[in-house]
């Protein structure tokens, strides 16, 4: 069974439907890239998968041993975080929150796991540094470590490379790909960067036209100019 199955989803706020009739599934070890224009509902879809928002119609089912709370989430950064006084360690450790339930303090095992995840991101040497003093790429690595503390199976990444320069972007993609290939972490990534598709195994395109399939099929369709919006003359 798939880890995540969405069938007949309609997304939107109140009565305004942004996107309707969305069906797709994600299996263990997949690398799904969700692309689409601004305002096509990418972030809304992510919030719906995370359970932060209810779908207008349709259903989301988790399977394959995955429960709703076991998703590691890499959100877009908020303005408040830019001057937040917290160390790298404090931020990463807060990812263990999900497993704690009502227990008020972190266990030794959770601290150990946080240390390991920071090391996976190459950030163990900076654990005592202040989060706001880091570069954009380093901040993303810390948030990725935090997301890994929350899950071992599925990562949801919301625009993980926005605001990063090209070299750091490539590094970030390489890091995410390594997590997927070597550690078999399922990845769902939102991006408005068409270049992100080359790393993915599957692509979901939402917007005026829906597409779900393997990255290979998406590329072929793209090269043949089979998308309606391409004929309309608007380039991505």
């Amino acid at each position, binding site marked *: 069974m798939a880890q995540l199955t969405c069938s007949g989803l309609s997304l939107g706020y109140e009565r305004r439907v942004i996107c309707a009739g969305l069906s797709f599934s994600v299996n263990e070890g997949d690398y799904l890239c969700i692309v689409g224009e601004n305002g096509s509902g990418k972030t809304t879809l992510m*919030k719906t998968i*995370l*359970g*932060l928002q209810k779908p207008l119609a349709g259903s989301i089912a988790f399977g394959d041993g995955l429960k*709703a*709370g076991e*998703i590691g*989430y890499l*959100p877009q950064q*908020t303005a*408040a*975080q830019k001057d*937040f*006084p*917290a*160390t790298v360690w*404090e*931020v990463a450790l*807060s*990812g263990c*929150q*999900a497993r*704690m339930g009502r227990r*008020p*303090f*972190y266990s030794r095992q959770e601290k150990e796991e946080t240390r390991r995840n920071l090391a996976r991101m190459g950030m163990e040497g900076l654990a005592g540094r*202040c989060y*706001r*003093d880091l570069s954009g790429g380093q901040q993303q690595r810390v948030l990725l470590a*935090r997301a890994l503390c*929350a899950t071992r199976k599925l990562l*949801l990444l919301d625009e993980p490379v926005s605001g990063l320069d090209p070299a750091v972007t490539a590094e970030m993609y390489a890091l995410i790909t390594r997590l997927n290939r070597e550690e078999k972490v399922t990845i769902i990534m939102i991006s408005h960067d068409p270049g992100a598709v080359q790393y993915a195994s599957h692509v979901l395109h939402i917007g005026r036209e829906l597409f779900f399939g393997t990255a290979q099929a998406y590329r072929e369709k793209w090269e043949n100019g089979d998308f309606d919006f391409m004929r309309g003359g608007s380039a991505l």
Partner: protein
Amino acid sequence: MIETLGMYFQFPFVRYALIVGVLIALCSSLLGVTLVLRRFSFIGDGLSHVAFGALAVAGILNLTDDMLFVLPVTVLAAVLLLRTGQNTKIKGDAAIAMISVSALAIGYLLMNLFSTSTNLSGDVCSTLFGSTSILTLTQGEVWLCAVLSIAVVALFILFYNKLFAVTFDEDFARASGTRVEAYNLLIAVVIAVIIVLAMNLVGSLLISALIIFPAMSAMRIFRSFRAVTLCSGVLSVVCALLGILISIVSGTPVGSTIVAVNMAAFLLCCGAARIQGGKA
């Protein structure tokens, strides 16, 4: 000067004032860090005005114990205010401004219309600036204050890690199954309690200073959440102690003296941060 202080400490009301002042300062500064970081600084201000309005109503109703009326009303206002922060038609800051001026105006209006007191402006002034009330506390009020303060500190320690998660990233916390709404509610209730307590100390106009200044000062110097929280608590307690002692010795109003000391501490911290930054 030590002798003057020694003499004053013979009086129980001075000792009470000191105990209550320190406890309130500690509580408000702990919560202040969360409020400042979540851009909720003005909630303290808005709520204190609501508490002022409630106090006026309680005075008209001739209630024997003001607290019993003021506390629930302020808690209710806090819950409503925190809720408006989340996608409503009226945005958070405007809602707070509207509620706080309305409560202030209505409170003063009611006091003028129905007051039985001969010294109305004195009453209003002491509610707003807390000029004398901290020195007239009864033993019962000190106990109430002590118990509530200890409860606040205990809650804070118990939920420290959750508070950090909710403050740093509300969406992530919610996605990983933390009941963010419940914690927001808890924060709202605790803030309301602190504000009602702090009204005795500094009066309703100056409460936000107790909440905001220690956190801001600590954030100048320290770069981890834990250090900022600890420093904020210590700084607030020291400032409150100093402020109360100075006001006893030189006869200045307690509330404004404490705020002035906090302001000085903030400027010192800014200076320290600059020197620190210059070195690095």
